[in-house]
Structure formats: structure tokens, C-alpha cells
């Protein structure tokens, strides 16, 4: 299944990029560092819902409860977006002020005429120090 393959890729790339902290604070908290570069970086990904997930979710709509079929979809999209953002700045020391936005693409996820997709976009400020 495409999802399992994607998760394997996400986990291995996350391990590779673990040395770049991604934080949501706006200002540098570390003192005594000399900033030589600061630039905005962003990464985004669009992931489609498959038919099986949609059927599972519409069954879930009848009874209510956690829509687990979509949980992994959103999780994958957000982690992939952060990964792509980090891959844009492989030499950065930290990414500050990280934000994630999620939106739907395609008219409506539960409309039978169109299969919906979600887009996740992560953006932040990549900062490099003088060493």
C-alpha cells in the first residue's frame, strides 16, 4: 500500500534531518551566536484520498467517532511538508517560527464525482550560525 511506503520514507528522512531543530518560537532563544543567514523556507505536499479511505470514512460518518482513515492521511501530509521544508535548507542550524497550514483541494471530499486531496504547507525561517 502506498501509505506504508510513504511512512517508511518519512521515518528514514526524519532520522536524517533530525539535527535541524524545528521550533515554533519567533525569536532566537540561544544567546551568543552569530547569525550569518536567515531566510524563509517552505515545503508543501498534496496527498490524495483513496477510494478505500473514503468508503471507510463515509461508513464512519454514519456511526460517528474517530475517523482513523483520515488521521494517517493528515499526519503524513504534515510530516512530509515539514520534511520538504527542511530539505530546502539542509545547512541551516535551526528553523524558527514554523507554521503548518492544511487545506482541501478538489471540491468536496465526500462528493462521489470528485476525489478530494489535502494539501499541507509548512513554512518557517531557516537560520544559520557562524561556527
Amino acid at each position, binding site marked *: 500500500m502506498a501509505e506504508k511506503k510513504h511512512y517508511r520514507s518519512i521515518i528514514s528522512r526524519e532520522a536524517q534531518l533530525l539535527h535541524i531543530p524545528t521550533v515554533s518560537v519567533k525569536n532566537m532563544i540561544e544567546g551568543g551566536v552569530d547569525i550569518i543567514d536567515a531566510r524563509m523556507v517552505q515545503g508543501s505536499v498534496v496527498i490524495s484520498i483513496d477510494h478505500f479511505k473514503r468508503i471507510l470514512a463515509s461508513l464512519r460518518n*454514519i*456511526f460517528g467517532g474517530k475517523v*482513523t482513515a483520515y488521521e494517517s492521511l493528515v499526519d503524513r501530509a504534515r510530516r512530509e511538508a515539514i520534511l520538504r521544508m527542511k530539505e530546502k535548507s539542509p545547512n541551516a542550524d535551526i528553523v524558527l517560527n514554523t507554521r503548518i497550514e492544511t487545506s482541501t483541494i478538489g471540491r468536496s471530499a465526500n462528493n462521489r464525482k470528485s476525489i478530494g486531496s489535502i494539501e499541507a504547507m509548512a513554512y518557517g525561517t531557516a537560520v544559520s550560525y557562524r561556527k
Partner: protein
Amino acid sequence: LKYSPKELKTNVNVTQTSSLKEFFILIGGVLAFLVVGYGALGFLVDFIAPRLPYKIEQALSGPFGHNIFDVKKNKESEELERILGELLDVMPGEVGSYRVTLVDDNLVNAMALPGGSIIVFAGLMNEVESEEELAFVLGHELGHFANRDHLKGLGRGLVFYSLFVLLLGSDSSLAELIGGSLAGVQVKFSQHQEMMADMYALDLLNRRYGQVTGAMRFMEKLASKEKKGRLAYYFSTHPHPKVRIANIKSKIRN
């Protein structure tokens, strides 16, 4: 402040479940609801249909006309009307106004339309050899009217459709997924109705002619022409001719 990278092994944002297991639990719930709802409302329909006054039945059957067919008027149709009239004379209970129409088509078939109209296709007239055989066919269709089978069919169809719209909305891909699963039950039910109509026709034949050999001859003719096996008849609306013969024989014995 020292940053020491650490990999997280668990993911709290995704519930760890098997999606296949969840699918079967959910679909099981939907099916259970449909079966229970369909069963309960279906029995309600079967309870109400025979008790519905004849006038309401007529009003409900308004849209089912027979003017879509190529109607034939000749000696044969007059003969049909005469046999029907004689059967109606011996029909027990409340007798409505029934009509018979001969339709110019090679189909070997007859059917009962809601509203008391019996359609006989010309192909059938070539097959039958005696008045009694024809009377059996007409009696069978009269049996459907007497048992209010068409009303039950309409009612059950309505129940089925309402349940689907209630559950899934009128525009859902799930409707197709579950759609076929209850059709088997519906067919089985109508096979029982066909048997009851046969029994009703036998009774009418016995009242009118004092014997039922015509019915046996007609069914045996059908059986000899039938090439499909019994298994193929499981999903058919009518029972296999041999099964119908067996039932007729046991009825005669009683």
C-alpha cells in the same frame, strides 16, 4: 541550552487500528441495521397490504396503465374475457373489477399489473391447448391480486429505498456496494408468492371445473421446455417448473 536530537518512536496523532477490521465492523453494523429495518418494515407492509381497502389500491395503482402495449382484439381475446368472467364468478371474497388484455407479442408469458389488469401475451395463446390451461394462467394472476402481491412488492420497494436514502443519502457510492446484498431475500420472498398464486389458481380451477388436470398439463409443458438447472432458479423470480409441479401434486393429494 543544549539541543540533543531524539527520535520519537510512537505517533499519538494516528490511532493504531487495522483499517480492514474497522471496515468489517462498520459494514456489519450497516448491514445489521438494514436487515432488521427491512425485516420489521417488510412485515408491517405484509400486514397492511391485505387489509388495504380496494378503493385505496385502485388510487395507488393509477399510474400503471397498459397502453404501452400493442393491444390485440380478436376471438382469442374474447375467449380470455369469457374465461376470466367465469373464474370471477367462483372467486371467493371481495371481487374487484379485473380486466384481461391480449397483447401482440411472441413472449410466452402473462402478468398482473397493479390496478386489476391482467396482460396475456399472444405467444402464450399458441402454447396452451385447452381452456383449463388458460384458466390456470388467469387464476395464477388472479391469485397475485387476491394476495395483494403487487402492493407488497411496491411497499417493500418503498421500504428498501427509504432505508437507503435515510442511511446514505440519495447520492452515495456506498449504496451500490450494499445494493445487491438484500436482493436475494427479495427474490426468495417472491418465489413464495408465486407458489401461493399457483395454489390459488388450483383452488379456482377446482371450483370452476371440478378438476385440475389443466394445471398439471401446463406446468409439465413448461418443465419439458426448461433447460436451466434448479440452481439457476435460486435467483429467479419464479420457482423451477418441477418444484411447482411437486407443490401442485401435494396440494391435489390434500
